[in-house]
């Protein structure tokens, strides 16, 4: 009986240590994925998010088109498309200014792939949607406001 109890304690203790380490951030599944830009996805302001992807202060560009609804009735599924007409576009990021995690998705566009991506994002509230594009080594940005009417009552 005593031995069994000891084993159970050991097993429990082991789990506890792992849990503590995980809570302290020492063991995280993301560690296996070094490429995932955690600081950019965790950024709490547009400036911080832009800095984390190395964009600094991107210049406005009319050559980036954002396809998104003017009014999104359902903030859980907002279709967003980005087309960049800038030559040598190599990177596209979609940011939603008023979301808790601003950076929604980023895409690396190898040569031969068109700078034309579409996805769907969540939006907590009416916000500007930014498309940050890296083309020929420089960053550019465009934005579009999307109004979110979660209750479906307009606004």
């Amino acid at each position, binding site marked *: 009986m005593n031995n069994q109890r000891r084993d159970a304690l050991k097993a429990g203790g082991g789990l506890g240590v792992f849990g503590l380490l995980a809570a302290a951030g020492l063991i995280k599944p993301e560690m296996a994925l070094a490429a995932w830009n955690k600081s950019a996805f965790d950024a709490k302001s547009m400036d911080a998010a832009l800095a984390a992807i190395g964009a600094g202060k991107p210049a406005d560009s009319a050559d980036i088109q954002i396809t998104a609804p003017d009014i999104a009735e359902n903030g859980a599924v907002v279709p967003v498309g980005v087309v960049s007409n800038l030559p040598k576009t190599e990177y596209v990021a979609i940011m939603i200014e008023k979301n808790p995690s601003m950076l*929604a998705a980023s895409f690396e566009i190898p040569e031969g*792939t068109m700078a034309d991506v*579409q996805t*769907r994002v969540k939006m907590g509230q009416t916000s500007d949607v930014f498309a940050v594009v890296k083309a020929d080594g420089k960053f550019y940005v465009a934005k579009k406001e999307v109004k979110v009417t979660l209750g479906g009552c307009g606004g």
Partner: protein
Amino acid sequence: MASPMRIRAASKDGVTEVRVLMSHPMETGQRKDSSGNPIPAHHITELSAKHNDKVVLSAQFGPSVSTNPYLAFKFKGGASGDKLVVSWVDNKGESRTDEVQVS
């Protein structure tokens, strides 16, 4: 194991259009369950698409991407019968790879 992705890849006039619908909860970590406990974040972090072993798109996703993420993109080249492979990894280390033939 997550459900298979639905992938469509269609080649037309030298351009292949790819559309992917993944099956994933994309939990943000912001929500709480009915008893008020936070639901841990669980979302896809990385995705890549390969056409005949050449990477045609790689992406990083954050929790702001919708549940069951949708992705569409286009690349030059690709012919009917070519192999297109899409794989993703999430923040819990789960992964999924599916392949289709370009039509």
